[in-house]
Every structure is written in structure tokens, then in C-alpha cells.
């Protein structure tokens, strides 16, 4: 059983904590940053899973040094590519949301609020307007 470097454990823990804290915010940009931190934390965890650092990547047949485990590194590389691509997508989506709504807050679900008033609407107005969030794109620039 390998022992884990305390520094790495603390760093991974801090990245997870900061990442989740940011993801719980209302602003999309903070959520994107939270995702980035969380991704870093996870990748670091993957690397740590490979055992103690500092072992050689290759050894000649004679020496009996143990080589570094390549598998977590390969997995971390794959994971980095995936998180990178999805971060780009998320950033594009946040930008689009800002273009459409004029701010980068996460909204409440409109339908959820409408459900509460179903009874009144069925009795009075058959065609309720959907006039929440009429903000002009780029208004609060």
C-alpha cells in the first residue's frame, strides 16, 4: 500500500472544496470557474492514484527501480482533454446565455412557478403570457 503525500491530499481537498463552493453560486461565470477547479482537483487525484511521484518513466533491464505507473497518467491525459473541451463548451454556453438574457445569472425554472397558478389560470385566462425576463440582450453592459 502506498502512502499518500499530505500536500497532494490537502491540495486536492482544497480544489474540490473551492470548486464545489463556486458551483453553488448563481453566476454562470463562477460556475464555469468552479467546474475548472473541480476538474483540476479530479485530475490531480488521478495522478496521485498512480503512487508516489519521482519514479523513472523507463528503466533499463538491469536496475531494479520500479517505474512510474503509466496508466493513471494516460487516464489523466484523457480526462484533461475531456474537461478542456467541455469547459470551452460551457464558456460558450455561458456567453450565449449572457447574449440572450443580458446577465449571467442562473434563472429559476419558469414552469415550476407557473404550476403553482394552474388553477387560477384554467378558470380565468386560457393563454397566459410568458413575459418574464424581457431583458434586452446587452442591456446592462
Amino acid at each position, binding site marked *: 500500500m502506498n502512502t499518500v503525500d499530505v500536500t497532494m491530499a490537502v491540495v486536492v481537498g482544497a480544489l474540490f472544496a473551492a470548486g464545489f463552493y463556486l458551483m453553488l453560486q448563481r453566476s454562470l461565470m463562477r460556475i464555469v470557474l468552479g467546474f475548472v477547479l473541480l476538474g483540476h482537483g*479530479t*485530475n490531480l487525484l488521478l495522478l496521485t*492514484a498512480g503512487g508516489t511521484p519521482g519514479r523513472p518513466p523507463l528503466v533499463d533491464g538491469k536496475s531494479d527501480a520500479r517505474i512510474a505507473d503509466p496508466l*493513471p497518467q494516460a*487516464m489523466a491525459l484523457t*480526462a484533461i482533454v*475531456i474537461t478542456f473541451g467541455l469547459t470551452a*463548451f*460551457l464558456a460558450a454556453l455561458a456567453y450565449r446565455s449572457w447574449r440572450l438574457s443580458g446577465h449571467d445569472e442562473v434563472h429559476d425554472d419558469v414552469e415550476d412557478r407557473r404550476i403553482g397558478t394552474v388553477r387560477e389560470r384554467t378558470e380565468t385566462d386560457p393563454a397566459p403570457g410568458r413575459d418574464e*425576463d424581457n431583458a434586452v440582450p446587452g442591456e446592462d453592459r
Partner: protein
Amino acid sequence: MTGVLTALPVLLPALGAGTSLLRPPRSVMRGLSIGVLTGVVVCGAALLVLADQRGPQVLHVGGWPAPLGVTLVADRLAALLLTVSALVALAVLVFAVGQGTAEGRGNSAAVFHPAYLVLVTGVGLAFLTGDLFNLFVAFEVMLAASYVLITLDADENRVRAGMTYTIVSLTSSLLFLSLVALVYAATGTVTLAQLGPRLAELPDGLRSGLALLLLAVLGIKASIVPLHFWLPDSYPTAPAPITAVFAALLTKVGVYALLRTQTLLFPRSDVWTLLACAAIVTMVVGILGALAQDDLNRVLSFALVSHIGFMLFGIALFDVQGLTGTILYVVHHIVVQAALFLAAGLVVRRTGTASLHRMAALPPPGPLIATLFVVPALSLSGIPPLSGFVAKLALLRAAAAQGTTAAYALAAAALFTSLLTLSTMARAGMAAFMERAPGPAEPSPKRPHGTGRVRSGGMRLMLAAAAGTTATGVAVAVCAGPLVGLAGRAAEDLLHPREYRSVVLEGSER
């Protein structure tokens, strides 16, 4: 030769997606996508026959043996679900092509087809993969495509819903990756076939910690209550074919992953009380949510959440009969849920609104669409001759055979949920299809897509696709005998994975 066959369900759609990114003319792209999915269906069926007769088909990609390389395994369960999923994906694609023709949309098709094929690639890979990390990659491939599809041509509301969906899925993916790291750190392998014995050697606390993290991760992906909140919020906003394929495939891949990992990694001999509680809560909360909704697509989305509980029912029982029931339920639900969402898409298209109380004031969309909605709706509620009855009966018999308190509680919740499902579906059906007394004619609030008679070729294609899906659902009930036998053998494989392990690890040291 069979090795190539195992790889084709992943390779074909991946290559198809690459080709359609070259932006060929629209007709070529459609032909290509339909051809590719037909190919996947054929491969899946061939694999199913081979796996049933000769045991699991294994491909060590690149010739690397199991613990080192990527392994693809097609056993009975994987091949069965692959075939059914590909069939439904094909029907939904035809529906989407029909809708594209009917609406004459231009630009989004160039993104839709590649993304759709990538989605199918991910689903195929998730069913076939033999290691935990590759399962993560498969989920990512599938979800990345779904992020694109759900935000395609998005307006403000859909961007909001897509954002919720994307962030929740990404969080669960990162937790999954952390799980892979922790499992690797604890056992030194990610190959599913090796993990079972090695995890059994770990201390109890660590083992249950890993099992719980896995349950939470897959619980988000399969939308188990209380981790379901993202689903009814995001699915209904997407266009009908996209919602249909998500509802049919994505959550079921989560259930499949749960089935596969729990039986291989954390086998147990008794009822899993925690999952039994989750199953009961999922069934009841989901269907109560559906009762409260007014939007047709949201009703169906909550019903989807509720019926995930039925699949957990069998896994919680954790014996051959229970798992047989779960497998039957997954097969039934993939087909029926897709058929329901396609029919709902047709209804919304005809009436111009998804809101039930507004629909009730509009002229009904006609007997054909009504049939296409009512047959899967009855099947979902478990009315006897249809596939839902077969699956529910298998689950209830499994519960009765086990006879523990948890099993009876599950059975009671399942019956209660079926009753409420029937009531929900009846409410939706009445609102949409009952002829009203001629009152003051209310103008349709918006009919942006026309009535469908303008470009009737596309509409006919959509009707044919929805009818095909419904017919597949009926076929599941007609073939119930052989299917129950097959599901029973697959469940037997799951509970006694010695053959799976030996075939996968053939040629390696262990």
C-alpha cells in the same frame, strides 16, 4: 471476425459522425445516418445471437490483453440493450428527418446529424465497454453530444434548461472520474472483470464508501430521486425527437451501468435495502410530480423518473428473477418512453401547445395520433396485453418469490405507482384527444410549424416513425416468451459472472 463485429457498433457511428462533419449535401447526410444506424441494429442483432449461443464476445482492442488494453465485451445483456437502443435511435432519427423536412430547417441539420451519431457511439461504447474508465469515457462521449443536441438552435429558455442539464451532468462526470481514481488507487486496476475479487479484499468501510459514491454518480445519471431534479427541468424544453432519444437512452444507460457495476463489483446475496428505499421514493415522488404537471412533456418526464424506480426494484431484490424483471423493464421502457415522447411531439405539433389545459380547449389531433399515444401510455401503465404488463408481472413475481418485507413494500409501491400512472396518462389523453362540445372556437395561440398538411411528406415520415416505435413496443409484448427466457439467461450471467471474467481475462496472468 466476431471481434470486428464487436467493434462495429462503436466504429460505424463514429466514422459516420466524422463523415457527416464534412458537410455533405443534406440528402447524403440523412442516407448516411440512417444507413449507419441500420448497420448498428444489424450488428447488435448478430452479436445477440452469437452471445446467446456461444457466450460473451470479447475484443481486446489493439491486441492488448485485458488489464492493460481497452476491452469490449458483448454478452447477452449488452447485446440485447444495444439492439433495442439502436432500433429506437433509428426510429427517432427517421422522425427527426421527417420533422426537418416538414419544417424546412436548414442550418441545424449540419450539427444535428454528427451530434446524433456521436450520441449513438457513446451509447454503444457504454454498453460494450469492459472497464470502468472506458465507461466514464463512453458517458462523456454520449453526454457531450447530448449537451450539443439540447442547446441546438436554443432560445433563452432552452439555454437556461441546457445549462442546468450540462452543469449537473458535468458534476456527476467529475465525481465518476474521482471514483475511478479512488478505485484505481485502492485496487490497481479498472478492468471490471478483475475488480470484483479485488474489491472484496478491501476493508468494509472503504468498500461501502466506494459503492456509495458509485451509487450517487450513477444515481444522478439515471435520475434516481432525490438526484432527479435536473431531468424534468431540462428534457421537456428540447424538440420532440431529441427529448425522445434522451428519455429512451440516456437514463437507461445509467441503469445499465448500475446493473453491470453492482453485479460485477459489489455482488451481494440479500436485498439491498438502501436501493429498495430509493426505488420506492423514486416511483412515488416521480408519479406524484407527473400528476401535478400541466405541460405534456413535463408529465412524461416525471413519469420517466417514476419508472426508473421500477428498474431499481429488480436490482434491489438482487436475485435472478429480480434482475430478469429489471432487464425486461429496461427493454420495455426504452421503446415505450420513446414512443410516448414521439406521440407527444406529434400532439404538440398539431395543437400548437404543450399545456394540457389549453389543449383541452382545442380540437383534438385525430384518431391516428390518439392511437399512437394511447397504446404506449397503456403499456406504461401496465395494462395486460402490452409490454409494460409483462415487465411489471416479472418484477411482482420476483418480489412475491422473495417474500421479504422490503420486497412486499416494493411491490405495493409498484402497484400504487402503476395506478397513478394510469390516472396521469388518462388525464393527459383526455385533455389531448377527447372531442369537446362545440364551444366558442378559440384561436390556436401559435402554429409556427403549420398544421403539418403543408409538407405532408415529412409529416408522413414522422407518423411512420412514431407508428414504428409503437409497433416495436407491441412486438416486445408479442415476443415476450423468448424475451423472458433471454432476460433470464442474461440475469443468470450477471449473478454468476465466472464465464464473463474468464473470457475477458483470457491470456492475461490472472
